[in-house]
């Protein structure tokens, strides 16, 4: 239990690091938007605007005030949970984000499940008979998966499974509340497109980790007791081999979230990734900062979860951190 508490303490410290990270990231992002040509008032005034209209909008949005003052004010409100109001949608940023987060998390969850099943499945299959036909097939498939860009795979999946054989929708999203079946039908192709590349990384990492356990004393002892290869693999080797894989899994989930920007665009899914991309173009600063803050929080939380999982999987880590 002492080790468990130490892991939680370690994870807590990691979570504390969120504060400076959010501060630095939001400040840099605000500064970059400030330095970009034009501002939201220009875009909001439409084409051929009257300069007086642009100025009026600029005053209304308080874009005529000093940058630092606006940033500090945003920060002060953000601490209280008020992320401001979108310049374009005229909607509270928290509301916009809350609309989009379930979409992206849903997509992420589907992709995660595919990634884990595919990655662990291929990794274990490859490790069952090292050098055998199955191992070679797994290596080949993994190499192919690594080489295929997610957006290209997404386009191919749309063409084959939505346009030519209309089994899945080509675009859009249906909330879970409208039915789990439709929800899954809308997320399966984008989830697959997102998951394939990281699944290959996990498969190769797991296979390598499993094979490195091959000569371990505990496996030799178990084998001497008469345990067969599949049992050795699943009951003994897999837990130890999973430690580096779980670490990688954490990183891959962060990358996977980044990948939603492209995949949500291809499938026209109204998620957080697409919101981030569009608001960056519009220079809708409150939304940009809101999305950045939420993304940083999600990724830091995932990292903390990975630390906790590693702590429980690896006793050495628990002992190490308790000292």
């Amino acid at each position: 239990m002492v080790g468990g508490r130490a892991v939680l303490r370690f994870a807590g410290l990691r979570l504390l690091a969120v504060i400076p990270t959010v501060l630095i990231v939001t400040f840099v992002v605000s500064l970059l938007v400030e330095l970009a040509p034009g501002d939201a008032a220009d875009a909001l005034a439409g084409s051929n605007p009257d300069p007086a209209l642009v100025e009026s909008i600029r005053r209304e949005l308080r874009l005529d005030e000093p940058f630092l003052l606006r940033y500090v004010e945003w920060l002060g409100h953000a601490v209280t949970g008020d992320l401001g109001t979108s310049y374009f949608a005229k909607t509270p940023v928290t509301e916009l984000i809350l609309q989009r987060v379930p979409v992206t998390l849903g997509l992420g969850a589907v992709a995660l499940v595919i990634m884990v099943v595919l990655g662990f499945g291929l990794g274990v299959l490859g490790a069952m008979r090292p050098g055998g036909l199955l191992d070679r097939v797994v290596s080949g498939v993994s190499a192919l998966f690594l080489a295929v860009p997610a957006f290209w795979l997404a386009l191919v999946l749309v063409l084959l499974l939505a346009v030519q054989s209309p089994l899945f929708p080509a675009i859009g999203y249906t909330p879970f509340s409208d039915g789990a079946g439709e929800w899954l039908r809308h997320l399966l192709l984008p989830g697959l497109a997102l998951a394939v590349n990281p699944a290959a990384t996990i498969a190769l990492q797991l296979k390598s980790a499993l094979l490195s356990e091959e000569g371990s004393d505990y496996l030799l002892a178990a084998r001497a007791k008469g345990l067969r290869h599949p049992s050795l693999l699943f009951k003994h080797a897999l837990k130890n081999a999973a430690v580096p894989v779980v670490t990688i899994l954490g990183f891959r989930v962060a990358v996977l979230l980044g990948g939603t920007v492209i995949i949500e665009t291809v499938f026209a899914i109204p998620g957080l990734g697409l919101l981030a991309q569009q608001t960056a173009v519009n220079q809708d600063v409150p939304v940009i900062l809101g999305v950045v803050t939420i993304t940083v929080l999600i990724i830091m939380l995932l990292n903390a979860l990975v630390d906790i999982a590693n702590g429980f999987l690896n006793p050495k880590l628990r002992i190490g951190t308790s000292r």
Partner: protein
Amino acid sequence: MGIHKGRIAALVLAASVVVAGCGGPASTGQGAGASGSATAGALPDAGTAPLPADFDPDATVTITYSGVPGGLDPDRVTGPGEWAYLYPVYDRLTLIDDNYDVRPMLAEKWAFAPDGKSLDLTIRQGATFQDGTPIDAAAVRTSLERARTLPTSTWRNSLKTVTAIDAPDARTVRLTLSGGGANLLALFSQPAGMVINPKAIADPNADLTRTTGPSAASGPYQATSITSGGTGKVTYTQRSDHPQYWDKAAGLIKNLTINNIPTSAQRINAARAGDSDISQITGVEVQQANGLVKGGQQPGILYPQTLTVQSLQFRSTRAPLNNPKIREAIAMAIDKKGIADSLYSGTCTVTNQPYASAHWAHSDAAEAAAPAYDLEKAKQLVAESGVPNPTFQLYFSPLYGPQTQVVQAQLAKIGITVQLTPTPTQVGGPSFDKGDFDAQWFPQTNSPDPSQMINDWYLGVTTLIPPADQARYTGIAEQAADVTKSKEQRAEILAPFWEQLAKDNYTVPICVASQVWLQSGKIDVDGMLYSWSGLNDFRYLYKRK
């Protein structure tokens, strides 16, 4: 033929009968607005337009569309792409027919004063807001006043000729004009002429941008939800008092969704996968969609976008584009037909002026006045210009990458260097307006009324004509904005304007684009209003049983 086409044909027929009978009273004039004025009074009541016999009253229809929804406030729209989301919710004072003529909507008729100093609009009887409040002159006055005076209103500049708005009686709205104003009736077919419930305007807590439901709406549908931004959508349901609605042929879909899908490629996929009932296809994907239609793989219709001209716009006050010989050389070196044939497979019609031949303001003389494609002469002009190594920066939306690369290659042949600067439209457009970049490739969407268009692009806030050269244009523009002139007279007045533009080359019009609407078998796409503009109004769209 869709309900709209049939209805408009009936309106035009009725109008011509009245014109023949009355000869056009002098007091109401015969101008672009006034010709409507002369004839509009006898137009058949829109409520008597026949309902299609085969429409499905329980239909649910999803439209995938290129425009991005912003908000639902007519006076705070940021671009024409948002208009289609507002049309179902708000009725306007006028509409534009397929001949680019102004027709009645909530304004049943209109008349300019003989001296052109005022415009009287007569408001239709029997129209109500969705909460049952009658739409009368006072309500229209409040709406127009808001469009004219709200500090953040998009329409303030366009309504600057209106100095006062009064409602002398329950059906008459009188606009006092400071001069010109020929653009106003066409403008009132756009969100500037949308009529908002005065109760919603007076409510300090109402945010019309996000307002859904019946409280502010005057149109055939009420919005039930709105998600702004890319891949955003607006959902609608038929107004609850639809049987009493004045325009029986409008609002025939029970549940309507207009969904922004950012790229044409996605919209093609959506149509082919059956995810949408109708899909708008624009840009270079038009040739692919047209191929699907021609090959019988997907039903659809190709519409020329008469008012959208793919153009090069120059900042003619800045070197080297302030040199007339350089601009003329550019106009001569661009192979418009080559671009139209290779990139658009012939679905973009080459033009040398803002209005295509289908529009009443088109001028054959201007077409002939533009420089013809001639590389040798273009090289000679560059040499004569005295500008060493002419170079300019061309901004374009990434959607127009292929077009601008072709321009770059063609101008390189005459020794002009083009630095391509791809920038998202939302940033690049305003940035060009503010003075960044030397030139832009732009799909110039022109108002149906040329006076409005001239104000929008050439002599208004955006002055593609440099101040030093404006003197030779302003006189013509003022004459053309005279409300007492007929559209034929205005076309005659405007011809030298287009001719001079073609010689001065502040812009190089390339071609008039087309778009394709892919559809499912049961939708009557031909029933869309404004199919020639791409800024469609779906009020008369319906689904067959």
